[in-house]
């Protein structure tokens, strides 16, 4: 997923999260909000069916959205972590091994021959 896509997803998810929380609370209210047009004075209580539906929505709907949002964020972080750790390419100049000093190595090898054979 591209960087821009990730950013967008992050924004979307956080916004959804806050909306879900708001909605959850809204569902929890006992009295309904009324538009100004209808029945300005008296507040009608919710019908039982509306209550029960509201309750269901609260639990399964909004809570689920909250949790799903968080899980999405977790998956996203995991994605990003993976990308970071797994797609590193060694830099040719910076990471290459030290150069061998050929002359010194040749001398050392000579010494080896002498040491091993000399003691025979």
């Amino acid at each position, binding site marked *: 997923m*591209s*960087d*821009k896509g990730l*950013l967008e997803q992050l*924004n979307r998810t*956080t*916004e959804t999260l*806050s909306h879900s*929380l*708001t909605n959850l*609370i*809204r569902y*929890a*209210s*006992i*009295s309904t909000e009324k538009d100004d047009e209808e029945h300005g004075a008296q507040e*009608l209580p*919710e*019908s*039982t*069916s*509306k*209550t*029960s*539906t*509201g309750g*269901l*929505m609260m639990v*399964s*709907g909004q809570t*689920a959205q909250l949790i799903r949002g968080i899980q999405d964020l977790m998956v996203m972080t995991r994605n990003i972590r993976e990308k970071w750790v797994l797609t590193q390419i060694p830099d040719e100049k910076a990471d290459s091994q030290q150069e061998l000093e050929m002359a010194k190595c040749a001398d050392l090898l000579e010494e080896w021959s002498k040491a091993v054979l000399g003691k025979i």
Partner: protein
Amino acid sequence: MSDRPGSAPAINASSQEEFNFQHVPAQALDAVRMRLAQLTHSLAKLKDEMAKADLPQWYSLQMQVSVILTQLQSLTTTLHHFEELLDSTIVYPVGTFPTTAHEGLLTTLLRKKNIPEAESWIHDAKETAGIDLNTMSSDDVKKCLKDDEEVTKWALGFLKQEHSNYAFRGLHTSQEISENPTLGAYDEYQPSVSNNIPKQPFDVDSILKIIHQGA
């Protein structure tokens, strides 16, 4: 029930008397009917799925459940919208209803009482409310309820305020935007450019070299 002897005279009867159907709230009923049909359909589908010997995957079940929830939600909203209208309507059977044959059917169709499960749920809910009508006076009760509403309103207001504190899109914080309104007006995102830009186009000689000599 092969023959319906009552139907022929009934039809004659209806053709004679014009029933006044003007009070049937057609629009409301139609809306409700549509939603209700959808809901029934999905519920039936889910029931069939659950009744199968090997259950389908949980996420398909979950999706169906959420679909049902949305449908239920829309149904309740329509009902609520037409609540007043529907509340003030009374249904009664007309003469054409074959009461002799299907008396039970009529009572079932027209009953308004909740099924016992629903009754028990409502009862449980009342108990959970924790307010005993007998011990508290009605004023106290009303006060309790009012406090409840206050709490909810406060919570909502708080959330709304918090919400406005954040800028959910773009790359600047809400504070920065409030200070400098021109920020975030356009899409500022710059994708990072990698350092390894391949040489273009490929060189024929180098390709041939690779083919013959290896890397």
